[in-house]
Structures are given as structure tokens and as C-alpha cells.
């Protein structure tokens, strides 16, 4: 079902995602350097065999720092999206079967969360609770949750009146069984695609917060902090900024292309069968 | 010259690198003033044939063969729809544009044929045609919107729309299948009434032998894209010559007891020209020759033709 990467965009996206994954997962394991290892003598070294991307303003190996930053971004993004998916699907599908009053309350909750631009919401919560990765994940998940929740609800509502659901009910299946075994599996396809499209959003959000200095704390490597440091030292060397930027673009572009190809692949597949 | 001539008509749908043969070497003629019934089950190709004649096939359809209306080559995409060709579709609920009044749509339908005629004249003609198709208070109806009408009424409107351009050939594709039994009976009675005043010809596509038996002058039976039998109505039902036709008639549910006959198996689907008899796999009279050569439509006299080695 997922092997519909006949589109060139999808293949490109898949390739980018794969590269980023390998970079982020294997990089930290294979690198001989410590991402926080300061070596001032080596600052702003040009790309060389020793340092494939060069070094930053404190002499730290850029490649290593990027790998760690990528890993961080990937982990953060998948964790956040997973959390939002779980919460969104659970609540959204639940409203399709719950009592109308309860459903209304949940939906209003969705609207409230969705009303805040995610960046502003994040800033507000950081202001209240301080910074740190553990704070970031629930914050961003919360801002994504209504998105998944609404779509999950629409899907569940549509499926609720499907003939096979009526048939299962007629056989005596409980609502819980119907939800878990019959409704959820038929919803997941589109949702997975959406999640893939939302991953770059989270990555960008994290990068943005870190760029503003409100994300991860240094000396932890983050794409955002590397961007801001690179920006500050642009005159000395463009390498740090370019490298961090390139990785960020690769990640967001890759997931976007892949997600869109998957989404297009799901729909016309049904049409081309006729 | 016959009004409609089909010769060697074949149709393939191309998709995903594969081809599906919807029609294989279909040949038939239709004279003026006659009603032809096109009968078949799912996968027979009857709807595809109707669309092919109308020129409404999708781009991925590959049509070969000769189709001529009054000598005009239909495959050359002459602009005959709304002038000499008209069609009534199966689903009356979705065939009308919901945002325009009936009057507007009926007047619009005449523009292909008479682009110069003033709107008021076209509306008047529309009202007269609505009356002819059994709709009471037609002037008032012209101002209604489609959603205000029931299925039966809408189908009458669609029939009126098709007849307004005075087509030489009217094709009705399962026009009563979506309607209730008593309303369908009304529409069939309407067709029977109209046929007497009908200048042109009609093709009535249906899966129902019963409907076709009453209305049509001749019946053509399609199976898996092949024309297997064609005959004047009385002759077809009195003495069907093709095993499939016989089996189909036998499957009509009557009040008798015992097990109902069925045709075991499923309709086959082909990717190209068929080298054997399309019905062989399910035929009670199947023999060696059936798998080796595709039977041609043989003339059995009296306008009766069947494609069977043993007809």
C-alpha cells in the first residue's frame, strides 16, 4: 500500500529523508568527535578531511554537531507528532462516539488550542515554565493536537455510518471493539500521511525557538542554535550557517515531498481501479 | 441507408499499463423509427457501447471500428450531441444542474440545435414538451429547481430535454433502474406512448429482459463485450438461439417451486481480441470448437443472428 513512490517528487523526498535519517542516527555513533569539544585553535577551520564541514566559532566539529542536532530534531519531531497523533486520534475519534455534550467540550478545547499560533503559545508557556526539551515536546504536541483531532473526528464520523460498522453492530460488537478493530485501522492511512507532512513543521518550530534562544540549552547542539550562532559569525565564515541551513532544508523538504507523494498516492489509487 | 451502422467496433480501456477489452467486434444496424433493446449484465459492455455512440468515452478509451449515423462518421467527433443524438442517463437525481431552474436548463438544451431562437420561444417549446411527457402545470414547473422534484418527475424532465432537440437517435441507458416500480411503470408507459410520435430511433439499454421485451422492436444481447444474439423481439423470446440468451431467460424469477436456475461462474474479462467463444467457460453446450475459434454472428433468417457454433 505504501509502495506508491512512482512520483519523482516522492522518490526524491524518500531519498532525502533516508539520508537525513542515516546522518542523524549513525552520525553520532560514528563520529570521533565530541559535539561539545571546544578546540579554540581550530575555530572556523575550512572544510577538510579532518572536519568535513569545518568547525564553528568554538572549534567544534560542525559535522558532528549537525549529526547530533539532526538526531535531536528527529527525536523531538517524532516524539511530538506521535504524542499529538495519539492524543488527537484518541480524542477526535472518541468525540464521534461520545455523548454530544462531552464531544462539544472536547471540540471547544480543540478550538482554544488551535486559536493560538504555535510559536506564540510556545513562547507563553516557556515564559511561564522556563525552557528545556522536556517542556518543548508537550507544548508543540498540544498545538498540533487539534489538527489531528479534527481530522480524526471527521474520519470517524464518516466511518460510523459505514455499512460494515452497522453490520458489526448487528452482530453484537461493542462500541469499543468497533472503534479499535474497525474504525481506527481505516482511519490511519490518511493520518499517517498528515503526520509525515507535519514533521517538518515541528522541526522548523523547534529550530525557530532555539534560534530565538528559547529552545534547547547550550552546549546542546540544535539546528536552531547552530543557525543563530552561524548567523552571528557570518563574517568570519559562512560554513556553519550554510551547513545548518542545508540540513534543515533537506529535512523539511524531504518529509514534505514524501508526505505529499503519499497523500496523492492514497487518493487516485482508488480512482485508477475502475 | 440504415440510420445507425456499427461495424467491427472494438473498445479497450487502457490504464496502469493494462488494457481491458470492453467491446469486441460489435456489428449491428438500426433503421429509422425502430427501438433497439441492448441487454446485458455487468461487464457486458452495453453502457460502453452507448457512450461510444454518443462520443462520451473517457480519454483512456481506445475505440476502433466504424460507427456511422446516417452516413456520418461518429468517430471523427462531429458535433452531433444535442442535435441528432441525445441521451437519457440512469440517475435522474444527479443529471440535472442543481443551481439552475428547469426552464433555464431545458432552454439551454435547445441551443445546440437552434442557437438563434429567442429564449422565450425555447421556453415555450420546453413547456409543451413537459406536457407531452406527462408533467402537469408545465409553465409553473419551468420555474422549479431540480431538488424540488421527485425521481420520477426528474426523469420525465430529462426525457423531455432529450426529445426537445428532435434527435434522430435517442439513447436511454437504464432510465428506470433507479426508480420505484410503480414510477418505473409510468416512465415505461411514457416511452411506449412516445414511440408512436417518434420520428427517430431509440436504443434502450437495460439489464432487464422484461422491460426490453415490451418496449423494443429488436433486442441485442451482449456478453463480455461481444454481441451474442440479435433478433426481432418476438423471435428472440419465442426461440432464443444462443445458450446465454436461453440461460438468461431461464433465470427470470417466476412463481414456480424448486431451485432457481443460475449461470455458474463469473463474467470473464479480456485484455484484447478474444480467440474463443466468450461464453464457453459457462456454457452447458461447450465443445472443442468453442475454445478454438470465436463464433461469428451467423444469419439465421428473419433478421435473427446469433454467435454460436451450434445455433
Amino acid at each position, binding site marked *: 500500500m505504501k509502495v506508491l513512490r512512482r512520483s519523482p517528487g516522492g522518490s526524491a523526498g524518500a531519498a532525502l529523508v533516508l539520508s537525513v535519517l542515516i546522518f542523524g542516527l549513525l552520525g553520532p555513533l560514528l563520529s570521533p568527535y565530541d559535539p561539545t569539544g571546544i578546540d579554540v585553535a581550530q575555530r572556523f577551520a575550512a572544510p577538510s578531511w579532518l572536519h568535513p564541514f569545518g568547525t564553528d566559532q568554538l572549534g567544534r566539529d560542525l559535522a558532528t554537531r549537525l549529526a547530533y542536532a539532526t538526531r535531536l530534531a528527529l527525536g523531538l519531531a517524532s516524539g511530538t507528532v506521535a504524542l499529538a497523533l495519539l492524543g488527537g486520534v484518541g480524542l477526535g475519534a472518541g468525540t464521534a462516539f461520545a455523548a454530544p455534550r462531552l464531544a462539544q467540550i472536547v471540540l471547544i478545547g480543540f478550538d482554544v488550542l488551535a486559536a493560538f499560533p504555535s510559536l506564540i503559545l510556545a513562547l507563553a508557556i516557556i515564559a511561564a515554565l522556563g525552557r528545556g526539551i522536556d517542556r518543548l515536546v508537550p507544548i508543540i504536541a498540544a498545538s498540533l493536537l487539534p489538527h489531528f483531532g479534527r481530522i480524526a473526528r471527521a474520519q470517524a464520523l464518516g466511518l460510523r455510518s459505514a455499512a460494515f460498522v452497522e453490520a458489526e453492530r448487528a452482530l453484537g460488537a461493542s462500541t469499543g471493539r468497533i472503534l479499535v478493530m474497525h474504525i481506527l485501522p*481505516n482511519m490511519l492511512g490518511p493520518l499517517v500521511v498528515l503526520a509525515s507532512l507535519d514533521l517538518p513543521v515541528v522541526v522548523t518550530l523547534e529550530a525557530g525557538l532555539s534560534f530565538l534562544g528559547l529552545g534547547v540549552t547550550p552546549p546542546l547542539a540544535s539546528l536552531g542554535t547552530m543557525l543563530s550562532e552561524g548567523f552571528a559569525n557570518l563574517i568570519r565564515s559562512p560554513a556553519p550557517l550554510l551547513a545548518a541551513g542545508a540540513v534543515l532544508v533537506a529535512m523539511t523538504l524531504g518529509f514534505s515531498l514524501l508526505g505529499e507523494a503519499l497523500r496523492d498516492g492514497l487518493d487516485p489509487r482508488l480512482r485508477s481501479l475502475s | 441507408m440504415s440510420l445507425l451502422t456499427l461495424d467491427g467496433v472494438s473498445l479497450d480501456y487502457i490504464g496502469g499499463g493494462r488494457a481491458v477489452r470492453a467491446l469486441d467486434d460489435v456489428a449491428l444496424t438500426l433503421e429509422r423509427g425502430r427501438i433497439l433493446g441492448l441487454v446485458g449484465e455487468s461487464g457486458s459492455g452495453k453502457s460502453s457501447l452507448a457512450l461510444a455512440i454518443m462520443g462520451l468515452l473517457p480519454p483512456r478509451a481506445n475505440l476502433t471500428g466504424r460507427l456511422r449515423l446516417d452516413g456520418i462518421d461518429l468517430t471523427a467527433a462531429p458535433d452531433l450531441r444535442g442535435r441528432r443524438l441525445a441521451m437519457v442517463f440512469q440517475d435522474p437525481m444527479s443529471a440535472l444542474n442543481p443551481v439552475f431552474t428547469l426552464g433555464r436548463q431545458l432552454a439551454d438544451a435547445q441551443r445546440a440545435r437552434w442557437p438563434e431562437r429567442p429564449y422565450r420561444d425555447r421556453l415555450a417549446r420546453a413547456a409543451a414538451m413537459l406536457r407531452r411527457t406527462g408533467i402537469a402545470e408545465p409553465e409553473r414547473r419551468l420555474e422549479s429547481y431540480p431538488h424540488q422534484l421527485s425521481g420520477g418527475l426528474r426523469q420525465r424532465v430529462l426525457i423531455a430535454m432529450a426529445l426537445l432537440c428532435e434527435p434522430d437517435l435517442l439513447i436511454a441507458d437504464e432510465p428506470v433502474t433507479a426508480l420505484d416500480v*410503480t*414510477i418505473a411503470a409510468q416512465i415505461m408507459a411514457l416511452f411506449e406512448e412516445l414511440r408512436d410520435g417518434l420520428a427517430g430511433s431509440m436504443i434502450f439499454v437495460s439489464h432487464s429482459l422484461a422491460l426490453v421485451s415490451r418496449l423494443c422492436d429488436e433486442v441485442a444481447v451482449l456478453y463480455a463485450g461481444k454481441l451474442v444474439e440479435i433478433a426481432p423481439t418476438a423471435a428472440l423470446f419465442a426461440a432464443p438461439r444462443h445458450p446465454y440468451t436461453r440461460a438468461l431467460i431461464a433465470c427470470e424469477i417466476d412463481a414456480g417451486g424448486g431451485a432457481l436456475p443460475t449461470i455458474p461462474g463469473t463474467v470473464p474479462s479480456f485484455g484484447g481480441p478474444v480467440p474463443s467463444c466468450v461464453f464457453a467457460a459457462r456454457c452447458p453446450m461447450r465443445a472443442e470448437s468453442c475454445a478454438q475459434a470465436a463464433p461469428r454472428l451467423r444469419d439465421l433468417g428473419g433478421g435473427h443472428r446469433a454467435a454460436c457454433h451450434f445455433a
Partner: protein
Amino acid sequence: MSTLLEAEGVTIGFGRLIAVADASLTVAAGETLGLVGESGSGKSTLARALIGLLPLRAGRVLIEGEAIAGLDRAGRKRLRRRAQIVLQDAAASLSPRFTVAALLAEPLRIHGLPADRLAPLVERLGLSDLGSRYPHELSGGQAKRVALARALALAPRLLVADEPTAGLDVSVQGEVLNLLADLPDRPALLLVSHDLSVVRRVADRVAVLYLGRIVETGPADALFGAPAHPYSAALIAAAPVIDPERRRPRPELAGEPPSPFAPPPGCAFHPRCPRAADPCRRSRPEPAPVGPARLAACHFPLTVSEPP
């Protein structure tokens, strides 16, 4: 014959819409009752309510002497084992991501029954080779048989077949009908259909519905041979039959079915009825006997020996 199902004064409504009004009927064990009518007649709605899938606004239904209303959760589950349904669109009634094998095992799993019940059913319905297929890979007839097997797996005493031949080619309709005429364990069958030939063939008794009310009931042969209610007569006359010589008179029931939101006063059929007279406009006829085991709700029923 013992009475399996008893319905009295059943009324079913959805908001402002009354789908079925004051319907009463009985079904004996092992018999086949045909529910006949056109769209808007309420036949599908009534059938579903009779087996407890829809709530009743008024009236009561007893299955094997037990009321189906007011049951607790366990009671409702037990009811599902006694009364089952095969839906009109069989392929759509099968969960798309389940294999046929899983779909067949589902009812047994839901009720905690042993799986050995399945084997004889699978055999009998010719489903042995279909176990690993998915619903979208089945033909119309195959899907119908799978749906039927699922309903029969629970060995219900009452089975509803909702338009069993809908969507099936003529050449395979016989498959389903032959199966329904010879069901294992002989449950009572509630056959909902607009196709009179189907009902005539399979049903023992028939109930004709118009705009949510039962207008006539009686033994199938008697009713089809000599209908008492003018609507039944019109339905029978309108049913398509192979007739190349055009022997049958052109049936013509004029007019359109009324809107269920605005039923005509008195007898709902009177605007279209060829026999309508003053009393028909003023008062609604109650079902009254018109022959042995026959009821018709009409002020001027056709006498059972009179041609319609």
C-alpha cells in the same frame, strides 16, 4: 406453529419523520414473511426495528415471548444471537481490512462461541477457497454468501434479508434465493424487497407497506393471485414481466408517492387510488379481515375473487 415474533402497534420515528406507524404482525417459527413496498414505505426500517437494531417510539415487539425493549447490555447481546440481518450492500457490510476468514470468525469471537460451528457453514455456502481474500476481491454473489454465513454463524431463530438480490446480476440472483429457501436450522426469514417476483418465490406470507403503514397481509399465493388492497394490485400490475406480445394491460398508477412529512389525510393512498371515494379522504381505514388469514386496510377492498 409457534409464534416466534409478535409486533403490536409498532411506531418508529426520527425527529419529525414517522417512518413506520402502528404496524402489527406476527412471524411463526421457520416461516418466511415478505415485507414489500417501494422507497419510503418503511419496510427496511421496520425490519431493523423488529430485530432490535432501531428504537421503537411506540408499540412492542416480542421475540420468543420476550420483549426486546428495555433490555440491558447482556440482554441485547443475547438478542443478537437470536435475530440477525444480512444487509443490502453485502460487499460494503464487510470490514475492508479483514480477510474473509477473519470476517467469518468475527461473530463467534464476539460471542465467545467455539469456532467449529463455522466449518459446515463454509462448506455449505461454498466459501472454502475464499479465506484469504479481502472484501474488495469478492464478486457480488460471493460477498452476499460471506455476509449470510456471518449472520448464520450465530444460529439465529430469525434472519432479516434486506433486498437480497439488489445489485446482483440476474444470472446469480438464483444463488442467493436458493440459499435463502433452504437455510440450515430453518430460521424464520424476514425478507425485505421491492421486487415482487423475489417475494412471491420465497415467501410464505406477505405484508405490503405504503408510507409507513401495513396496508395488506396474507399468504403469498393468495395475495399475489388476488390482491385485496388497490395498492397491492397496482404493485403487482407494475412488476415487469417478459411480455413480448404485450398481452398485459399497461399498468398505470398515476401520481407520485406522498412525502412522509405531509401524509394525505384519511387513507394515505387515496390521492392515487382508482377506487377512492369520500370516506377514504375522511378517515384512515384500519386493517380488517378480507379472507382466511388475510387483512387489508381499505374502505373498499377488492373482493378476493374479483380481478383487480
